[in-house]
């Protein structure tokens, strides 16, 4: 029962992308009855109507001319979604049927001209915020980012405190002469042997 069965025994062939409707809707151009208008203005009206029709035609037919989204385009969007029935796999890599459906849906939406953020928002609204790879930054989810930020600030403060508490003495005059780092090569070798801690 349950989610185990979501794993299909045979890898289904990838659901074919739904081809965008090639029957772009041809809006009938309404041409005004020119019998009421004198010839010259009727010509202008005809011309304007024709151009508008062509323009509208192009606008509505645009999606059909949009690039058929490739598998890579779909994967680019799908990789931002997590498969809710599996753990730790994003929708681009997941072979389950849910993800096959979703990839097809993404393909449809891409063909309709939706952008990646819009598609992701749609999926989050439709299926829940937990299908996104990272929860959106609203409500309680903001704490995901806020807490590390607060911790960083605290950490830096802690660092300043530690440094100060461990060096209570004000630093004396620069110890150029008492430097641990020595120039003399012999002493360097001694230092190396000492620092080596060969037990």
């Amino acid at each position, binding site marked *: *029962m*349950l*989610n185990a*069965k*979501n794993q*299909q025994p045979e890898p289904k062939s990838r659901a074919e992308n739904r081809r965008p409707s090639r029957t772009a809707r041809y809006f009938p151009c309404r041409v005004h009855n020119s019998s009421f208008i004198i010839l010259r203005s009727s010509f202008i009206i005809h011309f304007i109507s024709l151009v508008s029709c062509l323009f509208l035609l192009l606008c509505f037919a645009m999606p059909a001319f949009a690039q058929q989204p490739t598998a890579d385009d779909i994967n680019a969007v799908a990789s931002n979604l997590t498969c*809710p*029935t599996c753990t730790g796999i994003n929708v681009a890599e997941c072979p*389950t*049927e*849910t993800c096959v*459906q*979703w990839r*097809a*849906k993404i393909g449809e939406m891409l063909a309709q001209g939706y952008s990646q953020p819009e598609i992701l928002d749609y999926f989050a*609204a*439709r*299926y*829940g*915020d*937990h299908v996104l790879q990272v929860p959106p930054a609203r409500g309680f989810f903001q704490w995901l980012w806020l807490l590390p930020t607060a911790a960083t600030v605290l950490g830096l403060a802690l660092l300043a405190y530690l440094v100060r*508490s*461990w060096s*209570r*003495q004000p630093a004396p005059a620069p110890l150029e002469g008492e430097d641990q780092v020595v120039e003399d090569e012999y002493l360097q070798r001694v230092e190396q042997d000492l620092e080596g801690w060969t037990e």
Partner: protein
Amino acid sequence: MTANPDPVTTPSPPPRPRRTVWLVVVLGFVVVFIALLASGLRPQTSTLLQGNPAPDFGLTAFNGEFDGQRFSLTDMRGQIIVLNVWASWCVECEQEMALFERAWQEYREREVWFIGVDYLDTDTAGLAYLERFGITYPNGPDIGSRIYRDYQCAGVPETFFIDRQGIVQHVQIGPMTQPQLHGVLDRLLEGGGG
């Protein structure tokens, strides 16, 4: 042990009372952390709902005669509801589909409503599945997977039987058989408990 060469400059640990305060703070964090983990261990199965008021749900149906109609628990108070969570890729769900459809036809005039909740499917896949089994009772997508979450489902299919007062009388995890289904429905219709 080692002798401190210069007691003045070497930092010493804080005095006892202040130390105890810090200890309590640290232990407090530890306990909170463990409590957090413990809360994550609480069993969360839908069977816990049995005998309790059903969580409210809201659903917009998308099939057949009920397309576009809104169903919610509050609106349906006084009816008996069979809430079935399914998915088109769920093989076990198929076993009970025909059964539910028949029962829907049979019990419909007795104010028993079968409501199907489509989990995770796209609309096309869900509708195609319903077509396949000729389902006519209202089904709708689980927007935001909220119903799945509120009813603490751990998979599909899961069916919840809600009586006229809005109490979950029976939770079925997995597919149902005919005698089981009729048994529960008859019991609910008599007005009895779970």
